[in-house]
């Protein structure tokens, strides 16, 4: 309560200062009364109810200050709070009278009516306010860099390169000295700091390092042996080129980029599977393998759909690349669809900003960026560009958009033929049905519910609210009657059709009704399923399409415990609402995909005579054919994308990010802080300065050689992937709050080199790994280094790499001999609708496992897999006990160790124990074991070489070991050694869990 007292005291002080001069100016009775009114009614109310949040020393919510006259005159984000004399136009009064659900103050409850009335009176009589506090400018919130000041921050300045052209000339890049420029700059800094760099790492260390860095897989024992021999600088370069050409290079680099662009194969809410994401992943793998220009990749990812290409394959690649825009972990069931659209767009901007520009654009959604020169208007200028396309089709639970991929002429013809066949058969079916229906009409009858397939809820079983009339007047009837609302008491009656027992699964839901002229045309039917609540409007004047009785409401998933019912209300209907039954037809029972065939009640037959029977048989055949054709048509490959849904339009600023509180409209455009006027080269012109740019122009602007951010950001990323840390340690943030570059010149040279090589990732990777800086040993700091640079910011030694969870898993599969190297394609098990509790069953490389946001593959959760919902610049390096539990207990790991022990038991049979152990060490760690290590392993296997050696050991459980379940069988050099397979399995599992398996030198 101390806080409140202090506030009051401060305010009192201000009265003594300001009241006196004012009363001297004007001493009329009326003014004095108004002043008294303010002091007795308004000031206390403001202090009590408003100033906790709207005062200079508070959070200044909404930018509004109510502790001075100037405060409300200037107003907050939405403009002046009070119009003196006009309470009805004053925002303040609107807010406190709670008339607008979006603007209600104070937030914890409406003020008493008397207080509101006081405010009204005060405003209407002129809003006399003596509080003229001068705002101390130092107290208002600190402002960051303005657009004009942008050039004072390094990342907005043009790239300055000291790189000589002759480097670019060596485009064949076969010379091993092409990295000299990197080392020159690294070493210059080191000699400045008088740090002696570490020497080159040992051959087997470098081979392992290169294999894992460039392909994500360790070398096999034979690869290791092949390359270790005569491993000099030339052989090193050869290995680098060999690995750059490996198809696994694309797998490793695509996965790195997938971290940055929040790749996922499902969305968290409801676990919907995104069945086409994988095409984008494969696009990335291919693009990296063929070393596509990253500049081109940027354009394709942001605007591939708006580009053109001659052959269908290239066109497909462009279209698939744009899936990038749609991969956000979107909240599809958000009900405020306007807000959802904006959230979707914000997410795209966040990722585009972080991934390509190293900018935290999201900070400018609600207010000008607090630090970086990004005003809110720039944010909405960019947002306006993205707004013309959408990745969502709205309904209660919105849907993403899939479109068919272009095809080669042969396939095009094939699908075209299928399509026309399908159309023709569909027409025949329609014709036949019509005939049958008229036959059926002539023979009205009652359909017994137990004759129908699936689960029927008859009108007699529905839960009814209000008075419904039972009738049997017209048409075919399910059960003994149907019901109607008598076209009365609209909005009072409802019927709920809820099945008692419905096995979980996918169902076609159908409503039975008898059409006629007096029916309602707008019956709203709501289906509640695991997919959400969907509304279908039924026109009951139209004949139901199936057998004149059934109308499909669509396909739905129903879960064991979830809601499953159909709710129909007569609210706002324009005629009789008639309801006969609701049928839940399992999709699995529609074997040939035909609805009417499934619905035919064969026993009693609705037609008469053999003619009808014959026609029914024909219908069944035709429908079967149509379904078969549809199935083939469904196989046409699709991709997930955005569509241009509206003419491009400038957007209004959303005040505080609220879609319902709009401010000034801003013209579409780019970031004002990124000026490309100062050209460094003439060859690639900065993109169009068109007044209202499109998404394609945005892509060109981002990927322009002159954009000071993009090439730097990507070059820094590639560097960080290989060197353990970026030259800018925050690869997603090149703004004021990001880290400053440790080697600004080197960064600019890397960016220049990237541009010179036509944005080739492979050239950049190659030159980095050929540098001495990359090849250094991981050594302990000497005295100088430990004082000057203990964190290795200057790259004087190699860094200790932690294996990614993918590499960890893939390595185990490699050692166990189970790794399946096949590439590409979807691994999602057919029929998977939701990702909950999904079991990942393959021994393919980890990158091919679907990134299911609710069910990641084993170990992913524990070993720092990138959060797939946001752009991740670097994986975290956590060490938690759950990792220990996983490696020692997880069935997946145990299974790999068991498989490996089976594989190696034959090695142990044909070779000596030490040779077998050496093979294992080579496979797991790319090095041979020391004698000490051999001894520990032998001892664990129960094969101590000699009692003397064993007793030398001083481990705490030494005695236990001797008593271990595996007894020494024979001498280690004896070739007939028998190894206990369980001991071998436990040994291998320990190798998997050990430091050398999890950390690279």
């Amino acid at each position, binding site marked *: 309560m101390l806080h409140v007292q202090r506030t009051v005291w401060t305010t009192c002080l201000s009265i003594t200062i300001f009241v006196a001069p004012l009363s001297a100016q004007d001493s009329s009775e009326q003014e004095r009364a108004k002043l008294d009114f303010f002091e007795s009614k308004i000031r206390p109310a403001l202090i009590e109810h408003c100033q906790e949040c709207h005062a200079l020393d508070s959070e200044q919510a909404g930018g509004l200050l109510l502790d001075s006259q100037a405060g409300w005159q200037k107003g907050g984000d939405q403009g002046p709070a009070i119009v003196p004399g006009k309470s009805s136009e004053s925002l303040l009064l609107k807010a406190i009278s709670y008339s607008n659900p979006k603007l209600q103050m104070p937030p914890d409850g409406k003020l008493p009516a008397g207080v509101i009335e006081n405010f009204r009176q005060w405003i209407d009589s002129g809003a006399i306010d003596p509080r003229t506090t001068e705002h101390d400018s130092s107290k208002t919130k600190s402002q960051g860099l303005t657009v004009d000041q942008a050039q004072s921050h390094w990342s907005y300045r043009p790239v300055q390169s000291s790189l000589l052209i002759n480097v670019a000339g060596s485009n064949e890049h076969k010379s091993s000295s092409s990295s000299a420029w990197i080392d020159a700059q690294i070493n210059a800094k080191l000699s400045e700091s008088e740090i002696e760099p570490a020497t080159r790492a040992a051959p087997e260390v470098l081979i392992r390092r290169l294999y894992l860095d460039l392909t994500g897989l360790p070398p096999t024992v034979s690869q290791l042996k092949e390359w270790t021999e005569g491993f000099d600088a030339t052989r090193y370069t050869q290995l680098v080129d060999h690995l750059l050409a490996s198809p696994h290079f694309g797998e490793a680099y695509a996965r790195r980029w997938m971290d940055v662009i929040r790749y996922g194969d499902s969305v968290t809410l409801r676990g919907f599977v995104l069945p086409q994401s994988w095409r984008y992943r494969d696009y990335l793998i291919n693009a990296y393998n063929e070393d596509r220009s990253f500049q081109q990749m940027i354009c394709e990812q942001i605007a591939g759909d708006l580009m053109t290409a001659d052959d269908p394959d290239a066109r497909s690649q462009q279209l698939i690349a744009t899936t990038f825009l749609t991969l956000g972990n979107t909240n599809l069931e958000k009900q*405020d669809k306007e807000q959802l659209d904006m959230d979707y767009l914000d997410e795209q901007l966040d990722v585009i900003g972080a991934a390509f520009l190293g900018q935290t654009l999201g900070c400018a959604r609600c207010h000008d960026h*607090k630090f970086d020169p990004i005003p809110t208007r720039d944010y909405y200028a960019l947002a306006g560009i993205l707004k013309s396309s959408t990745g969502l089709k709205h309904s209660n639970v919105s849907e993403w958009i899939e479109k068919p991929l272009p095809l080669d002429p042969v396939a095009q013809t094939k699908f075209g033929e299928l399509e026309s066949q399908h159309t023709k058969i569909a027409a025949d079916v329609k014709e036949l049905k019509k005939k049958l229906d008229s036959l059926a009409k002539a023979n009205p009858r009652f359909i017994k519910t137990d004759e129908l397939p699936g689960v029927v809820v008859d009108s007699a079983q529905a839960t009814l609210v209000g008075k419904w009339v039972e009738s049997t007047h017209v048409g075919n009837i399910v059960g003994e009657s149907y019901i109607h609302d008598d076209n009365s008491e609209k*909005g*009072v009656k409802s019927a709920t059709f809820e099945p008692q027992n419905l096995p979980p699964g996918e169902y076609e839901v159908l409503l039975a009704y008898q059409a006629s002229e007096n029916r309602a045309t707008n019956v709203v039917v709501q289906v509640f399923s695991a997919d959400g609540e969907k509304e279908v409007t039924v026109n009951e004047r139209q004949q139901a399409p199936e057998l004149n009785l059934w109308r499909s409401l669509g396909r739905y998933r129903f879960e064991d415990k979830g809601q499953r019912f159909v*709710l129909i209300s007569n609210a706002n209907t324009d005629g009789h609402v008639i309801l006969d039954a609701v049928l839940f037809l399992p999709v699995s029972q529609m074997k040939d995909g035909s609805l009417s065939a499934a619905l035919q009640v064969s026993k009693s037959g609705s037609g008469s005579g053999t003619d009808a029977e014959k026609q029914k048989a024909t219908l069944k055949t035709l429908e079967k054919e149509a379904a078969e054709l549809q199935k083939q048509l469904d196989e046409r490959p699709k991709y997930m994308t955005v569509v241009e849904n509206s003419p491009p339009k400038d957007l209004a600023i959303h005040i505080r990010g609220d879609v319902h509180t709009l401010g000034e409209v801003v013209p579409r455009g780019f970031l004002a802080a990124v000026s490309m006027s100062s050209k460094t080269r003439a060859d690639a012109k900065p993109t169009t300065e068109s007044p209202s740019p499109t998404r394609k122009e945005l892509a060109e602007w981002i990927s322009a050689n002159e954009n000071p951010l993009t090439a730097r950001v990507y070059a820094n990323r590639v560097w960080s992937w290989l060197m353990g840390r970026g030259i800018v340690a925050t690869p997603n943030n090149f703004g004021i709050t990001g880290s400053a570059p440790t080697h600004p010149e080197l960064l600019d040279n890397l960016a220049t080199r990237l541009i010179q090589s036509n944005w080739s990732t492979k050239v950049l990777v190659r030159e980095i790994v050929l540098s001495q800086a990359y090849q250094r040993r991981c050594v*302990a700091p000497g005295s100088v280094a430990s004082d000057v640079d203990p964190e290795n910011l200057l790259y004087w030694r190699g860094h200790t790499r932690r294996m990614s969870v993918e590499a960890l898993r893939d390595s185990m599969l490699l050692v166990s001999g189970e790794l399946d190297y096949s590439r590409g394609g979807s691994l999602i098990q057919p029929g998977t609708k939701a990702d909950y509790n999904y079991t990942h069953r393959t021994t393919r490389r980890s990158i091919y496992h679907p990134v299911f946001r*609710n069910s990641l593959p084993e170990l992913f959760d524990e070993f720092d897999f990138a959060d797939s919902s*946001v752009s991740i610049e670097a994986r975290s390096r956590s060490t938690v006990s759950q990792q220990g539990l996983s490696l020692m*207990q997880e069935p997946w790991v145990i299974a790999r160790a068991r498989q490996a022990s089976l594989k190696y038991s034959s090695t142990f049979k044909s070779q000596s124990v030490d040779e077998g152990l050496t093979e294992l060490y080579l496979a797991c760690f790319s090095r041979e074991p020391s004698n000490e290590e051999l001894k520990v392993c032998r001892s664990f296997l129960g094969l101590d070489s000699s009692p003397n050696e064993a007793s030398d050991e001083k481990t705490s459980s030494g005695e236990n*070991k001797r008593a271990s379940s595996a007894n020494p069988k024979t001498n280690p050099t004896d070739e007939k050694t028998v190894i206990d397979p369980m001991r071998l399995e436990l040994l291998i599992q320990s190798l998997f869990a050990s430091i050398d398996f999890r950390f690279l030198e």
Partner: protein
Amino acid sequence: MSAERQLQRRAWLQQTGCGFGALAATALSQSSLLPASRAYAGKPELNLSSGLHHPAKAKRVIFLFMQGGVSQVDSFDHKPLLQERDGQAFEFNDARQLAKTGKATTQRIMKSPWKFQPYGQSEKWVSELFPESARNADEMTFLHGMHTEGVAHGPATLFLHCGATNSVRPSMGSWLLYGLGPENQNLPGFISIAPSVGNGGPRNYGNAFLPAQFQGTRIGGADSDILQIKNLLPRKDISELDRGQQLQLLSDLNAQQIQRREYKPNEFDAVVESYELAWRMQSVAPPILDTSDESTETLELYGINDPKTRAYGQRCLLARRLCEAGVRFIQVNYGDNSANPAWDQHSNLPKHADHALAVDRPIAGLLADLKRRGLLEDTIVWWGGEFGRTPYAQDNGTGRDHNPGGFTVWLAGGGFKSGSSHGATDEFGFQAIQGKVHMHDLHATILHQLGIDHKRLVFNHAGRDFRLTDVHGRVVQEILA
């Protein structure tokens, strides 16, 4: 381990321990200790009795999550007018319709099928759905003016746990653990018992951008009676002796490998310790999770002998045991894995009775048990769902729709004014109108009782400081004892 290495390690622990136990500190990730977190780096020595920012009234939280949305007007928010006006139509700002069309709609009032009666000295009116819980009314603080964000389950559930409907943010338990650290280093500090996989699933107990050691640990699942931590129980296919020898082997291998290396970063020590901690957890945690040593009287208290209340009773009992063992945040879920979970009665409102029956006695048992063990004083028990329900029938049917604009939660223990009610909804029980408490405010208030200033519990990520309460939240001083 050489003396030099021992020293190095001790220095590192001192440098980074921040008042945590040494063991917990070694389990911290290295990255978390690097500049990523300003709050972390600048965190003062943590003295729990004085709290992180101010003296704490409570040490831990048990959150009884009623997934799907309990109807307030059928449970704790008594509105006699519904009886009177049953079946009559009125205009309402239905949240779903408002989100879709921006317009109010006409809706038919539906009375509660359950009778209310006053309980305790506070004479709190509670419906017959919760007779057992209601006997503890004098221990409870009711917040009738709750409101939140998100009309659908997914967004609202995420908002409840993480304070945001769409962005990926850390869960409240993770924030709490980040602020206070664990009480017991051999156990996870944040546990979610039987969570559902839907409506955000793991994100509801996820650490998002906070370091990994603050993530929630799941025990069991919504559709399972087995309450176990993943990979915790020692594998059965090998003997204890073999297991011990394997750990010794791993420890020897690691020692040799560290020895071999020229550069030995501290994280190697953390890795070594993580295996030891895992090993210790395997001996410490299973007895806590195993409730077979509880007396018949206790089992009876939680309703574990009755098949109708067994499942939630087991979870509540486990929560008490975890609470005793020093777990900071324990969430006891009542829900299921469907998209429309448990309490979500869009049709057939009477189904509420089944759910109430399943949780009522276990909750009453938990409160009684905490009280008699002296745990209720410094434990906050929080009961509630992601939103409430409408007082009118959804589309004139037999159920109630979601209602984020007004609902009730109750708190017990942890230094709140017991036997009191704060805030109110309108005469129909629809919108909060008085003593409004936003979900952000509730978060802020609970953190406050734990000695944390919600405005100062920040973590720097992607260029800016993040909070559980974003830029909102107000401590509800009125309910503090």
